[in-house]
Structures are given as C-alpha cells and as structure tokens.
C-alpha cells in the first residue's frame, strides 16, 4: 500500500504547476484550465487526508468542490466569451479595465 504522503506530495507538485501556469500564460482559457488543475490537486489532497484519517468527510468536501467548480467554469467561460465579443482579442494583459 502506497503511503498517503506520496499522494500529498503529488498533489503539491500538481498545485505548484497550476500556480506557475496561472502566472506564466496569457491566454485566459489556459489560465482557467490551470485553475482547474489546482482545484484537482486540492481535491486529491482532501481524499488522501480522508483516507489517512479513516473518514469520508474529505470525500464529501470534494463532492462540493466539484459542484462549485462546475458552476465556476460555466460562469467564467461565459464571462470570457462576453469579453471576446466586446474586444475581439483575448489576452489577460489587455484586461486592465478595473485597475484603479
């Protein structure tokens, strides 16, 4: 049986890759996918901790994270499409409208 700390280490690696992706990329779609990657890394950590503690609470939390992620992706992609309609260009560097 593989110890849970291996799963947690893998989750840390995936989360860090997601963070780097969010910072490095300019395409909002890929930034969005990197966020999904980070959410998945968090979910994996939840399930691994739940397994370690012998409790199903971690799995219940992951269920809610999945539901929230589905809603978030739908709304986020709608926002990206709306911005694209307005600007015909899609780079996060152009989106400084709300900067103070």
């Amino acid at each position, binding site marked *: 049986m593989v110890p849970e700390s291996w799963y947690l280490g893998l989750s840390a690696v995936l989360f860090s*890759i997601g963070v780097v992706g969010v910072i*490095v990329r300019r395409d909002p779609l*890929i930034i*969005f996918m990197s966020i999904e990657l980070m959410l998945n890394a968090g979910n994996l950590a939840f399930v691994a901790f739940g*397994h370690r503690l012998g409790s199903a609470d971690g799995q219940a939390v992951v269920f809610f994270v999945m539901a*929230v992620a589905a809603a978030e992706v739908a709304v986020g992609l709608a926002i990206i499409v709306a911005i694209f309609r307005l600007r015909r260009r899609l780079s996060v560097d152009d989106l400084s409208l709300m900067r103070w």
Partner: protein
Amino acid sequence: MGAVVFVLLAGVAVGSALGLVLRRNPIHAALFLVVNLGTVAVFYLTLGAQFLAVAQVAVYAGAIMVLFLFAIFVLIPGKEETGPDPRRAYRLLALPVGAVLLALLVAVVAIGTRGRAAAGPAPDGVEAIARLLFTDYLFPFELTSVLLLAAMVGVLLLARRREG
C-alpha cells in the same frame, strides 16, 4: 506492485500537467487536462473513493471539458500569445515562485504526516459518502442545487445578445 503503479501514474499526471502549462495550442492543453483528470480519477479509485472517481470522469472529464472545448471553438484562440511578450521578465519570476511554493508544500506534508498512523479503517466507498451527504452535509447539499441554478441563470444572462 502498488508503488510501481503509483509512480507510473504520477509520472503521467505530472507530465500532462506540464504539457497543459507548456503547450501553446489551447486544444492540446485541454486534451492534456483530460489525461490529467483521468489519472486523478484512478488515484481516487486506489484511495477507495469510487464515487468520486466516477464523478470525476463524468463531471470534469465529461461536462467541464466539453464546455472548455466549446469555448475554444467559439473563440478561435491561439493567436494571443504569438507576439513578443512585453512582461517576459515578470513572467519568468513565476518559476522561482513555483519552486518556493513547491518546497513549502512538500515541507508541510513531510512535517505534517510524520509519525502518526491512520486513525481508523478507511471508509468503504459509496455508502459512507452517501450517508454523510444526506445527514451531516444535507444543508450544503441542498445549497449546491441553488448554486447550480444561480450559475445557469447567470450564464444565460451573460451569453444573451443585447437587442436594440
């Protein structure tokens, strides 16, 4: 045996995550993300979370990735990142930031999981999570339906064409 499978799958997961971050074409990135989500589903199975493994494939690899692909087809992207990057120096800062974050997380995991053994037997699959969802987490569970409804209405509002 289990360790070998874990290392192989972890390699696939990390490789597909790197592919997602490094590939220029958004469709390639989406397909890499599907691979990554699939391997995470297998990890859920090995951790005894059968329900989450199925939900992962159905919700993430199915529904969410279809949404992403539709958005990619609608937006015809791929031309945003071709020009020279005016903020290249700042973006390269991401690598040390990511390395420091990774070191911190690994240190926390190493310290936090030292010594203590598992508190009890692992929960048995679908029944345990179903019992929790319909007892302790009943209120958040019902709230989730409201959240999904609100998201649906919001998306319809955002995607509607303004008339006049």
